């Protein structure tokens, strides 16, 4: 599961979990989507459920830990976050020599929630030490570095993701975002257009979700990007989704 449009992914994953509440892959993916959408407490709850349904770690979770509410708010409840974080740290310490990339990934998400991006980056790096060919992990490392204001390193991580999976639209989109933050608006626009072209050709190897949903996000970010470039005259083309004309203007084949 790796949809670019997180709200739709959240709905789909919740439906999946209705049918199969112990689906660990769905729980981890859900935590990631909630994090991307700033639903901090729900992300914590999804991670807690991941632990408690995981045969390797379920003994770590005590019944009193299940009080956490998963309330819909973008304000992180520090006590809930700490509780889940401590449980994941216990899980990671269980086999310190044998890194469980999923536990590291969960910890990485938790440190993203609390804005501790350097620690989060360490976790994803640890996960990559055992799974170096995982494009999604490289993208998560990249996004963490970018959100933690380390854009140059983020670009390197995204390039690793794109090297493994050239059609990985989320990583392509993220490179664009990072270019905006580096004031490289033209490069950003080129990345967004590349992503839109790939998507139009149906080439997203990571199955980033239905095409109209993906393109909504990319088009609206591209619109913001042309505003930032002071090229408002391109906005009508963006609004009409005239990919052909935009490709011509940005010299994209």
């Amino acid at each position, binding site marked *: 599961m790796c949809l*670019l449009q*997180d709200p739709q992914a959240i709905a789909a994953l919740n439906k999946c979990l209705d049918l199969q509440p112990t689906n660990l892959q769905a729980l981890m993916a859900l935590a*990631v989507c909630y*994090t*991307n959408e*700033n*639903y901090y407490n729900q992300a914590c709850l999804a991670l807690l459920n991941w632990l408690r349904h995981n045969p390797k770690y379920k003994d770590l979770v005590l019944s009193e830990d299940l009080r956490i509410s998963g309330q*819909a708010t*973008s304000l992180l409840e520090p006590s809930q976050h700490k509780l889940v974080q401590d449980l994941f740290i216990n899980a990671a310490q269980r086999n310190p020599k044998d890194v469980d990339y999923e536990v590291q990934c969960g910890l990485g*998400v938790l440190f*993203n929630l609390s*804005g501790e991006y350097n620690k989060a980056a360490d976790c994803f790096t640890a996960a990559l030490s055992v799974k170096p060919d995982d494009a999604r992990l490289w*993208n*998560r490392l*990249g*996004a*963490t570095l*970018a*959100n933690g204001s380390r854009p140059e390193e*983020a670009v390197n991580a995204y390039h690793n993701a794109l090297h493994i999976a050239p059609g990985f639209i*989320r990583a392509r*989109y*993220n490179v664009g*975002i*990072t270019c*905006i*933050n580096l004031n490289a608006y033209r490069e950003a626009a080129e990345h967004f257009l590349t992503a839109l072209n790939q998507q139009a050709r149906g080439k997203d190897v990571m199955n980033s979700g239905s095409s109209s949903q993906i393109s909504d996000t990319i088009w609206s*970010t591209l619109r*913001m*990007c042309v*505003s*930032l470039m*002071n*090229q*408002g*005259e391109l*906005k009508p083309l963006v609004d009409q989704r005239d990919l052909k004309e935009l490709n011509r203007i940005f010299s994209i084949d």
Partner: protein
Amino acid sequence: MSELNIAVLGGGVVGLTTAIELQKLYRNANIDLIASGFQSDTTSSVAAGLFRPGTSFCGPNEEITRRWINDAYRYWDDLRNTSEGALAGVTEVSGYIFSSKYPNIVRNHYLENLVPVYRPATEKELKLCPGNWKYGSFFTTIVTTCDYYLPWATKKFLEKGGKIQKHHIKDIASISTGYDVIVNCTGLGAKWLCNDNKLVPIRGQVIKVEAPWIRTFFYGDNDTYIIPGFNSVTLGGCRQYESYDDNVNKYDSLSIRERCEALVPNLKSAKTIKELVGLRPHRSPVRVEKEVRHCNGQKIKIVHNYGHGGYGVTTAPGTALYACELVRESLAGNSKL
């Protein structure tokens, strides 16, 4: 041609400085400055405006706090050195901080490697003022008189096409339509706007007096300070935690006069121009961060920039530059895991 729409809430030194910095970053954006009060209505206009961050002043971490303070100092110092400096009410000033109690009070780790001079007072200097002063420092820094700065910054903002709206905002969601991002510089107002219980007023009272012979600032024990500005000298003060009293208190006035005159006796002949009260918006840490709020199925992008306490004039440019970076990050959206 651009349709980037930004609202800045708050008309004090933080809001205005942030608004004019956003204009520099986004030359074609539509920027609205919305506040319930401007200029003399603001807490900034009460402040003496001496660049001296308290040693307890803090942002999210040491590195960022230092950056805010260093950026702010450079900003004020650069502005002072332009032809606009005098119009903006920014100038250099030197003076003393004395304590009869603790050596640490006269030290300041933020200023010591930043300002041109920060040195221990000599034995002779410790006897400059009446009182049994044991410890002292002399330093050179910058003073910004908001009676000049706020009108100057307002003029700059309007000249570059900024728009000003005067009304009270009860709810961020009520103004969110049409803005790509909202920058919240509402000082103490954020307490209600964001339900932020960490934000507390620290009440201050000052007397602005006519004393053009005072060219040096003085700090003594117990919140006593004498700070010369462009058009008056500010005598202070007090720090009353969680007091919401915005009226001038006559006992505070008497105490301020008595303490300041004891420190610099020739102030006895200084005529009072006005007495003012300000509620410093204190928050530890100062909140300069992004938020995405979900409201009726709509996502509102907010960048907060409030809670500077008694150091709003001091640090406004530093946090404004940082807030501008957050605005860009917020507009671009977060990178997706």
